[in-house]
């Protein structure tokens, strides 16, 4: 992956970090600058007696700095990347020093995997409670200990199941109260009442539902006033549906049951997914068509990287989303990929009726910016929307989903933009945050593209037009 200013800008937590990095471009700040094996490292003289040690990996823009900054990447890492990008400083070829090797050995791993064999390219597993690997010999040595551990795990699971069910009972009571008082009334006091039940559900170990309810006030207030009450009905209806589905997972198809458990909050770890032989795996070229970032009430930032499959894989998911959570305090607003990047990778999809969320199982080729167009199917917005409706029927609490389209147009009514299908008359209101940025598209005739539909608003992510490519910034 070539380092570019665009990538560095995107990685920077804020403008002041870039400005601070710019001041460090003077070579005299860097007593050591070296490179080797796809890495670049240096020592930057800060205010202390000992220089900070900085290393970057150009393949995946990984970085590490010994400074105490709470911004990630810090100004030293940004400055080192900058010097690499504009080739302004001389990096001496050198063997990788121990401190760099040490960092490399502790990295989770998709980094240098483009040059590794498939086996090496597999991410290293991190310890987790459920999936910590115990050497066989050790297990053989103490089968009783393993049995005890398994029993403890099972007891914990049962306790959590019971806690969740109890929480769902409280949720039913809470929902009944809201219905009795009226959902028009609910909208006026949504922040307060949702916070209360969300806390109860956190206590009941149902973080998925808790998060959904915690985020509900924000979601409602992004919508226009008149539609909020009906949106509240939609959202609370889904909450009840999930809680009912969870209680009846034994009666549901396996994948829908998995969806219900995930929606309530039973997470599947990355390691579990990668070790799941039943999980869908798709080895293909993937193009990043959208990166969304949203601050959550739990002080984590949810970063979604949406991928579009560029190479053929019949019957396999056309889209995928990689979801990362980073602390808001770091200032980082995106993952490692930029819109337009193309990677070659095997993705593992979480089990779902509508598989979308995935993890990179093995990276065959690192991200590179590509000018190729997206290989969009030849279908209208209306046809694409019909697929959404079909998916909604299969997974009633379906969230955001990509919709591709051909020959649609962007139209304006007042300040509101719509994506409009001339043939069918279908018009999807576009996200209000795009009213400014996407408005030049309203002067064009027909565009092809892709975006994300959340049931209320369409976020246009990518469009091919007669004036060239438009991408959501």
């Amino acid at each position, binding site marked *: 992956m070539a380092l570019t*200013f*665009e990538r560095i*800008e995107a990685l920077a937590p804020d*403008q002041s970090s870039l*400005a601070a990095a*710019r*001041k*460090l*471009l*003077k070579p005299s700040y860097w007593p050591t600058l070296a490179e080797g094996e796809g890495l670049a490292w240096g020592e930057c003289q800060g205010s202390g007696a000992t220089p900070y040690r900085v290393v970057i990996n150009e393949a995946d823009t990984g970085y590490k700095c010994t400074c105490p900054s709470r911004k990630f990447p810090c100004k030293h890492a940004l400055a080192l990347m900058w010097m690499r990008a504009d080739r*302004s400083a001389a990096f001496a070829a050198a063997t990788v020093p121990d401190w760099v090797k040490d960092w490399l050995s502790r990295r989770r791993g998709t980094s240098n995997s483009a040059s590794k064999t498939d086996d090496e390219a597999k991410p290293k597993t991190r310890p987790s409670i459920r999936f910590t690997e115990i050497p066989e010999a050790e297990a053989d040595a103490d089968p009783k200990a393993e049995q005890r551990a398994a029993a403890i795990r099972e007891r914990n699971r049962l306790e959590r199941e019971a806690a969740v069910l109890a929480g769902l009972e409280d949720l*039913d009571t809470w*929902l*009944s109260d809201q*219905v*009795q*008082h*009226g*959902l*028009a*009334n609910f909208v006026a006091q949504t922040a307060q009442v949702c916070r209360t039940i969300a806390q109860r559900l956190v206590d009941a170990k149902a973080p998925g539902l808790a998060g959904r309810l915690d985020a509900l006030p924000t979601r409602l207030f992004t919508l226009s006033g008149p539609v909020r*009450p*009906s949106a509240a*009905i*939609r*959202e*609370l*209806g*889904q909450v*009840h*549906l999930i809680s*009912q589905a969870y209680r009846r997972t034994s009666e549901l198809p396996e994948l829908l049951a998995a969806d219900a458990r995930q929606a309530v909050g039973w997470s599947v770890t990355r390691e579990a997914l990668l070790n799941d032989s039943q999980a869908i795996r798709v080895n293909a070229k993937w193009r990043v068509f959208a990166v969304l970032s949203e601050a959550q009430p739990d002080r984590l930032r949810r970063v979604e990287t949406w991928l579009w499959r560029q190479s053929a894989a019949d019957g396999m998911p056309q889209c995928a989303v990689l979801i990362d959570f980073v602390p808001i305090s770091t200032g980082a607003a995106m993952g490692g990929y930029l819109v337009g990047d193309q990677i070659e990778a095997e993705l593992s999809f979480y089990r779902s009726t509508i598989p979308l969320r995935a993890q990179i199982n093995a990276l065959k080729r690192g991200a590179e910016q590509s000018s190729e167009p997206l290989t969009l199917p030849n279908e209208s917005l209306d046809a694409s*929307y019909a697929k959404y*409706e079909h998916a*909604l029927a299969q997974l*009633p609490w379906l969230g955001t989903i990509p919709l591709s389209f051909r020959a649609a147009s962007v*139209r*304006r*009514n*007042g300040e*509101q933009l*719509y994506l*409009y299908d001339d043939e069918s*008359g*279908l*018009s*999807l*209101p576009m996200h209000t945050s795009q009213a*400014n*940025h996407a*408005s*030049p*598209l*309203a*002067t064009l005739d027909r565009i092809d593209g892709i975006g994300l539909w959340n*049931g209320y608003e369409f976020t246009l992510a990518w469009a091919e037009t007669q*004036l*060239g490519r*438009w991408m959501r*910034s």
Partner: protein
Amino acid sequence: MNLTALHAKVLPSLLGGTSRHPLPGDLIRPSSPNSDGALEMLTLMGQALRFERPPTPESFIVEPEIKDERKIIADGLRRPLIRLLTAKTATEHPGRALARAFDQLRLRPHPFDLPLIDAFIRSNAEKLGPTAQHWADRQKPEAETRSYFDPELLDESSWMQAPLSRRVAYLEERRRDDADAARALLESTWAQEEADARFRLLQVFQTRLSISDQPFLNRLEKDRAQRVRALAARFLARLGAGIENPALGACLERIKHSQSGLLRKRTTLQMELPANVKDQAASRWILETFAELSFGELAGAFKVTEKELIAAAAKDEPLLLALALIATNEGRLDLLELVVAGLPNAWERMFEAGLDTLGTMTESERQRWEEIVVHPYRKDVPTTYSLWDWLYRITDAEAPSSVMSIALHAKLLTKVPEHERGSAPWVEMFAATCPASQRQELREQLTKFDQSQTVIPFALLEILDGMENDRTHV
């Protein structure tokens, strides 16, 4: 139960509250004996709403058709341009240089980039083509917007539709080509013009003012705007056809007239500043007092030619400053050159006076004006930033090669005072005004600075080079 029934019977209860509007009892079978069916109704209604397609508005706005024949900037320059225009720059010079380049090269920003460089577009819309102008006007009420077309395609039928500055430039050009036709054009639209437009358009008459303009100017003596009446009166006075310019009397009171020389008597003029005007305020007072005067009026008052007037003032610096300001105001660069020969620090004095416009001078005239005022400093280039900054603000043009040579050969960037050395404003300003032919030389000087200070200047030079190369390949 169908969707209509759900909407009619269930939705009002859910919105208003089932305690006050009970749900019909027979609509759904509860999922458990303990349930009253309300939550099942909530879920069913919610899902029904999710399957409803979003309503289509009754109508959409028809976007105006904009004829923009400028070429869109090359794709490869878009990202650097956005990066530069959204970065924190130390001065406005990079933005002004880019706007000039767009205008001169007849290029325009990519329409998709307009929202990303909105502040730049709004500040420089008139130089960026009709699409950008439309973008800049998008928040204005419809009544205040106008047709959008390329100013280079202006003609007599469309000139009314253009922004005022373009109309002034167009009329100025017409005035040079055919003064009578330009006057006739202005007369035809005069009644529809607002006061500010009337004043600015009338200023154009100082180009090729002639006796044939007199009838039109006579009619303006009854104009509603006082400043238009005053300007018309000045023009008439200059033609010797009206009352004397009232400002002339006030100025003459301050000029002492005498004769000197033994064999041949020569007129000598000397300005006497009012006692209450302190030294530091003298230049500003001179600008305010003499701004309304013309060279011809002043020379006529002393019964000398314009050149003789300059010679008569040769030993009086304040009066020479007044003449330099009058020559600038009238665009008489031939006379300015003579004045500056006796007032080598005219640049600093005009800066002190607070001169803020070069009137209707064309770009080449502004560059010539710059050469005239800077050349006396060849051997001792000033190192005051505010002086250079003013120069490039007031000329709003690329530096003439000869001026840039003076700065580069003097290695000005390395000579500025310690507290200003290498500071971003200097390097940004010179990068923004450097002619293409001297950019390489400037780059060589910039490499001696910290890279942290030259990121913006180098990026700007790259973009300007790119825009020029892009244009030459059309």
